[in-house]
């Protein structure tokens, strides 16, 4: 997909990978709706993108809030037009320090699923139909190696990401032939606030900068051959072409 001139929506866009994705999509000429819970930090990111000539808009909203999702989608399409690129990047680990499953409150598991699985599904339900009727669109689910590996203490987060991976595959199968591509992307370990919350004593020098991962995801959006619908891609293994 040629990103120039497309409407894009990125959740969790006030920091980390979401911010880097919004910045790079805007740099390539997309009109970007940035979604995050807190309005203040989001406005700063939007102002920075506009300062570089990008087309960016701030939408304060919580993707885990059922009533907020239609508002988010409506605001986004009011501001940037039809959404051709939707990136489900916002997610939560649940309470940190991370706990064993048997020490995890059921309510905490449910809250993690609401933010990482059900909320993005609600948003996809609104946006994917418009993409499919027009015959073009890319939906990206930001995943994790915790969706595949049974890391102790990553139960709530890992289960939510595994479910989202499978939802991504089934959605791709159902939308086969419509022109909508659905991807799951494991970004690898990144130097972000979320990583620090999960693994406070990690060696930050060994972690990828979010901008480097965002550049790979942007290429996946552009490249329907190397990133076909239904694929689960691992960003550090993606050969970045100049």
């Amino acid at each position, binding site marked *: 997909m040629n990103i120039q001139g497309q409407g894009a929506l990125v959740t969790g866009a006030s920091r980390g990978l979401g911010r880097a994705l919004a910045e790079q999509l805007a740099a390539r000429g997309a009109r970007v709706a940035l979604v995050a819970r807190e309005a203040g930090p989001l406005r700063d990111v939007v102002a920075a993108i506009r300062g570089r000539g990008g087309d960016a808009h701030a939408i304060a909203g919580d993707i885990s809030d059922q009533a907020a999702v239609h508002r988010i989608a409506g605001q986004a399409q*009011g501001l940037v037009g039809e959404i051709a690129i939707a990136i489900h990047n916002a997610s939560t680990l649940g309470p940190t320090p991370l706990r064993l499953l048997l020490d995890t409150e059921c309510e905490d598991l449910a809250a993690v699923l609401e933010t990482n699985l059900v909320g993005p599904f609600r948003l996809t339900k609104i946006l994917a139909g*418009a993409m*499919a*009727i*027009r015959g073009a669109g890319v939906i990206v689910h930001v995943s994790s190696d915790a969706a595949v590996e049974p890391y102790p203490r990553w139960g709530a987060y890992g289960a939510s990401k595994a479910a989202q991976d499978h939802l991504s595959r089934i959605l791709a199968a159902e939308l086969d032939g419509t022109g909508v591509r659905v991807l799951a992307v494991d970004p690898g370990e990144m130097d972000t606030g979320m990583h620090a919350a999960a693994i406070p004593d990690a060696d930050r020098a060994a972690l990828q900068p979010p901008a480097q991962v965002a550049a790979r995801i942007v290429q996946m959006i552009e490249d329907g051959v190397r990133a076909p619908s239904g694929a689960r891609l691992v960003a550090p293994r993606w050969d970045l072409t100049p």
Partner: protein
Amino acid sequence: MTAAIAYPPARPGGVLEPCPARPHRELALRSDEVPRDKVWLVVVDPRGDRAPRLERFAALPRLLRAGDLVVVNDAATLPGSLPGVTADGRGFELRLSGPIEAGRLDGVLLGPGDHRTRTEHRAAPPSIARGDRIAVAGMPATVLAATGRRVELAMHCDGDALWQTLYAAGAPVQYAHRGERLALWSVQTGYAARPWAAEMPSAGRPLTWDIVLELRRAGVAVAALTHAAGLSSTGDDALDRALPWPERYEIPRRTAEAVGAARARGGRVIAVGTTVVRALEAAAGDDGALRVGSGVATLRLDAAHRPRVASGLVSGLHVPGESHFDLLSAFAPGDQLRRAVALAAQHGLSAHELGDACLILPGATT
């Protein structure tokens, strides 16, 4: 809006009996909401003297032919009912009548109260004039133009704040026949995109993705345009008589090409909703080819109009006397439509805009 009369008989099921035509004064349709996957479809073949028949809406792919094209309106419904107050503290309800562009709101004002009071019985709005400063959902605005209760407003805030407040404070426009508040999601189609519609383009409500994908498997193409469906009532007789007002539309290149391809292969174009008919007719040149891009539709459809692009129409049910009934008359003779309404009434169908549906299409019953 429908002037429907409550009519509670059981839903149809099993074998349907042939229905004798009845004078329209006896027609009675229900006015309740029908779940999207439970909608009935009255099938009308306007050729000759064919009897209308009843099908599940999900039968649509069987009723069309490979090579046909279905065109939908992908406008999302705005949360277009907003509270406001004049500089001297008098309250009103603003109902948006079309898309928001460059911080400008177009709409009509109603006096204090809510949708539970019939629009024509609502208190008159406070009189306002060009240049007045007012507030809409707490946002300051200047009145650019006022013609009676019809207004154009310039909002004094940036686009991000305007849309955030609109969606936080606004609710879908609705009418007195439906008491409880409609949720925003309940007035969106399964493919809604840009929020351009003052009221839901409701003919597409029963088009589930199961049906859309089944249409495509059956060789029926499906394409979208965007048409800014406006208000169906303003509470002011003079303004109502001029409805529908000019409405903005946009034809994507892909859709213009799909219409051209369908015509070239002898396929029929089926419009889902009268808003689609209005956009197609406005965008059609004399040769029936569509102009790509945006425009403003001004034409009024009635029995005298011969659609140049659409061969058929999917619509809600409308009874004689409603403006929408005249619109359907562009696709079928009045007698045929009255028989269709009689069949719908006999089987207790709903004429609510979120109710049952009809398909008017030459050849649909063969």
